[in-house]
């Protein structure tokens, strides 16, 4: 089992000068600590127009800063939005490869298509075509990264022959992932030989059949890339404290804040009835019912909020269900003070990670280094 962290770069109101800088700086500090503690990856999302929820419009720039100040941690570029109105396929391939060169081959490349009207509508994207463009893009990226020259005549984009530069450091190219929210997308990931990055966390038992189906399907995949990425990563929320009451108190604040921010955008499923957007996006399963005073106070199942012992149990459940990695959000809208976030990460690394160390991992040494 590996662990990562993910950054949405959510920003608290009021949006005064300096507040975004504070969020970016705090996030970079968290990335540095994660690297020192032996977390495997740091991801940064691409979002647009989602005020408060995510000011992360240029994730590769944030990850470049991470690359410059970290040593080992892998850099999750994405979810890169594979929609022509937002990104030309070449621009995504270039930026992914550029970061791979800059970081010495540390890129994980996440792909997706956005789930909000706020974003897709803002760019005038054709909502019905995003699955199609995503499929075309993910088949083109490996060719752009590995062929000396690339040309393409397709439905989402066409281009004459050009050398797409730079080429990634990783041979043959960075591992590719698919953001999975709607049921069935994990199958699409498996069919294409791509990693499953599960964003819609529900309870563990509910997801196990999805993981099983993914494992079964990927055995007979037709890979879009030159390698198969058969890993399952689960996005999750981390708040670890020795005192259970404290853990639950701050964990609830953290999760409720995230849910509340995410709900202010307009999902495609709320705005444009479409055969290709039937599921709620943006982590709908996290949202407890605000009309229900009792439910609002509960931490949804499967989330890593609690004492180290609680979290060991939850991680074990995910591992038993078939997950290979858990990627944590560690703060939202700076609702947790930075000291608490760093303390939670350190406690997790000290008390939880050793239970899940694979042979050959050297996280003990890394933690010793971090402890100074």
């Amino acid at each position, binding site marked *: 089992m590996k662990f990562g962290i993910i950054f949405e770069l959510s920003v608290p109101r*009021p949006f005064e000068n300096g507040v975004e800088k504070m969020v970016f700086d705090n996030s970079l500090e968290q990335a540095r600590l994660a690297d020192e503690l032996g977390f495997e990856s740091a991801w940064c999302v691409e979002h647009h127009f989602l005020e408060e929820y995510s000011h992360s419009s240029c994730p590769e720039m944030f990850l470049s800063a991470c690359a410059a100040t970290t040593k080992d941690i892998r850099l999750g570029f994405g979810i890169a939005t594979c929609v022509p109105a937002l990104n030309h396929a070449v621009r995504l391939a270039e930026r992914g490869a550029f970061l791979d060169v800059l970081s010495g081959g540390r890129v994980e490349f996440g792909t997706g298509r956005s789930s909000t009207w706020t974003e897709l509508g803002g760019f005038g994207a054709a909502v019905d075509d995003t699955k199609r463009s995503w499929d075309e893009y993910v088949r083109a990226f490996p060719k752009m990264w590995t062929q000396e020259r690339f040309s393409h005549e397709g439905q989402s984009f066409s281009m004459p022959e050009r050398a797409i530069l730079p080429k990634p450091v990783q041979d043959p190219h960075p591992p590719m992932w698919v953001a999975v929210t709607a049921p069935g997308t994990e199958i699409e990931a498996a069919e294409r030989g791509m990693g499953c990055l599960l964003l819609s966390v529900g309870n563990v038992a509910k997801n196990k059949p999805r993981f099983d189906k993914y494992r079964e399907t990927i055995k007979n995949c037709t890979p879009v890339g030159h390698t198969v990425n058969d890993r399952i990563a689960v996005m999750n929320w981390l708040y670890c404290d020795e005192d259970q009451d404290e853990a639950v108190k701050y964990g609830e604040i953290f999760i409720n804040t995230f849910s*509340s*921010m995410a709900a202010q955008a307009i999902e495609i499923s709320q705005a444009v009835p479409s055969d290709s957007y039937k599921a709620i996006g943006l982590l709908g399963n996290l949202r407890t019912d605000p009309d229900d005073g009792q439910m609002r106070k509960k931490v949804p199942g499967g989330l890593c909020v609690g004492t180290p012992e609680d979290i060991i149990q939850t991680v074990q459940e995910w591992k038993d269900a078939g997950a290979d990695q858990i990627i944590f959000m560690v703060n939202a809208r700076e609702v947790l003070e930075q000291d608490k976030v760093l303390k939670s990460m350190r406690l997790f690394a000290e008390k939880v990670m050793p239970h899940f160390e694979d042979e050959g991992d050297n996280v003990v040494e890394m933690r010793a280094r971090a402890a100074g």
Partner: protein
Amino acid sequence: MSTDLNVVEHPRGQGDLSPLLANAPSIDFGKNRGLELENVRVHYCLFEAPMAQAKELIPPSLHPGNPAHMSITGYSVADSEIGPFEYAVIALGCRAGIKPHMLTLSSFFSTPAACEYFAENFGYDGAVANVKTSRFHHETSTNVELEGGRVILDVATEYPRQLLGTGQVKYPTPLNVAKLGDHQGLVRVDIGYEYRETERGEIRLRQFSAGDLTDQKLEPTNAISGASSDVGMQFSASSGIIDLETMASAGGLRWLGSK
């Protein structure tokens, strides 16, 4: 930094709706009823709207969505216990915490019986008008014509394309400024839907008289999408009411009776 969800600083409405309460519909809680509508054509048109206008209309207990948005919805009811009728609602999208709602700005009913029933049971402060929602092969249209023949609303969803499956349209819960029993504020209209088929198309707004429909306070901007659906609707007897000032998540939502 705040550590209380109740004071999450999403943009909140700044509208003062309290003057509307004086003449708002009054629901006699305990005697109020729901309504079962078996066959309804729902024509739901969603638009973006200027954020500044939206904030001025939404009370402090609610948030505008991102982006600000509004709906024009026409309903054609084949038959019911109050007879066949049509109605149209102009509403502003908003959130009570995480829950999507539509704050009614104006409503029009084709029969006095329907207008009265919807006021007494669901808090719609409606007017009687010539309302018509019609589905054709090339479009579904909704019109509202006042007595004397002046058309104040004419919207169509053109180039319809049938969607696969059912349940694709997510109608937010309507809110009406009204009184419910001893309470006053925003009455929730809780409706269950049975979806049978949906067509989606492009909106053409042919007439929108802002003075009649939104008291000149809101105008649609970018069209998002139009949907024409064949549904069954089950209205629950109203029992939920949101305070005008206090957010639902901070205790501003009250359920009367057993709920």
